[in-house]
């Protein structure tokens, strides 16, 4: 177990080390000529109009919001799904099914609510259903 975890750790670091090594090698080999004009922000050849750090549209936020909830749900269902098999083999499948069904069902209701309230829609078109 610890062995595996160490492995995982090593791989995490490996990514960083590889990137670092390559960048270091590049540092040796690449020209560096940072003129001020070169460092200007690219915007299709035009001088950029204002910083990009501005407030962003809320739509993406709503998506993230819905996601977080469902993400937690998925996290909850995983262990149950793992245990499910044993329950079925033990003949208690129906119980487990009902329990999980209730759990999933409640959240599914949430999804339907969000859907019905059209919060998943990007743009709302006037006079057009759904």
């Amino acid at each position, binding site marked *: 177990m610890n062995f595996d975890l160490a492995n995982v750790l090593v791989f995490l670091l490996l990514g960083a080390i590889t990137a670092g090594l390559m960048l270091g090698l590049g540092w040796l080999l690449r020209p560096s000529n940072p003129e001020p004009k070169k460092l200007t922000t690219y915007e*299709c050849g035009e001088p950029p109009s204002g910083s990009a750090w501005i407030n962003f549209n809320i739509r993406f936020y709503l998506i993230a919001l819905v996601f977080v909830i469902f993400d937690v749900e998925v996290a909850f269902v995983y262990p149950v799904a793992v245990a499910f098999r044993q329950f079925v083999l033990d003949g208690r499948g129906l119980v487990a099914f009902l329990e999980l069904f209730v759990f999933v069902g409640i959240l599914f209701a949430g999804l339907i609510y969000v859907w019905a309230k059209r919060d998943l829609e990007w743009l709302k078109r006037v006079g057009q259903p759904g």
Partner: protein
Amino acid sequence: MSTAGIEIGLERETPAGLETEEMTLNMGPQHPSTHGVLRFVVKADGEVMRRAIPDIGYLHRSIEKISEKVGYHGFMPYTDRVDYVSAMQCNQGWAMACEKLASIEVPRRGEYCRVIACELGRIASHLISVGTTGMDIGAFTPFTHALRERERINNLLEELCGARLTFNYMRIGGCAWDIPPGFVKRASEFVEQFEPLIDEYNELISFNKIYVERLANVAIVPAEMAIAWNLVGPNLRGSGVKYDVRKDVPYSVYPELEFDVPVGTGERGTLGDSYDRYMVRMNEMKESCRILRQALGGIPEGPVIAKVPRTFKPPPGEVYVRVEASRGDMGWFVVSDGTAFPARTHIRTGSFSAMAIIEELSKGLMIADLVAVIASLDIVAPEVDR
């Protein structure tokens, strides 16, 4: 800005609320999807545009002024550059304007050559158009397939007039070159092979659900709006207006040829949406094949060019001729003052008005839609800027 009392059918409510600041994006002049050097100043709220303000002139090459310097014959190569994607019709427009000024009759064989060249050019142009639409929507393969077929048209045109893109094929009074031996056979062969490819192309991309969804119901232009904004050609026909200069103000030998004018039907969305404009182009290629087949079969004998003096001095006057270029009704306004140089030339092109309408169309669209709209309007930079 008033739109002459026309309401845009599709109003999208931009999400009010959290006052996300308006983000000003420069799209272009160097941007993969602005065909050539167009620029849009996009006022966006996240992904949704409040409006996109076109900024043109990055390819303004003063062609109109040059016509006043190089004379009638010398201007012909420049007309190639007015709309380099389908130069043939520009050649024809200029030639027709001059012929009208000086009342010159073009021999019938010359007219047939012109029609053949123009229709080949139209296919080539529409290929680029539908190809770039595909590319802007994110499918690269249809684009290369379009380029591939264009390559074959280029080969044909090269044989006919010696160049792949800037043909300089027509002359005042006719055409520069007669049809070379074997050309008719090769061209017919191309037409035969090309027609099934249109079907393939349709199945590959036009009917693809994702593609349809990207284009249908996007940027709807109702007929009155299209007319008021002077949209022409496939863009106008996409809105359901059956108008084609070849049919309605007949010129050349088009009245002798049989073809239909495809119009938008709103088959997958609303009449006048981007998909309709796109489909009109697809269908026009088929019609062009039809015309080509007839024209190739019926080339009369005779000269291809009328006698025109080398120093061409038309009588004073003005003409305004219209030809059906690939991007629609192209108007050539030429004022002659009796000298060997035109006093004024003005070229009224389809892309110019198509570009003008974008600001109106873009309201409430998404950034991704903008590229689809540009592509579906088939805007070519030199035509806008000249």
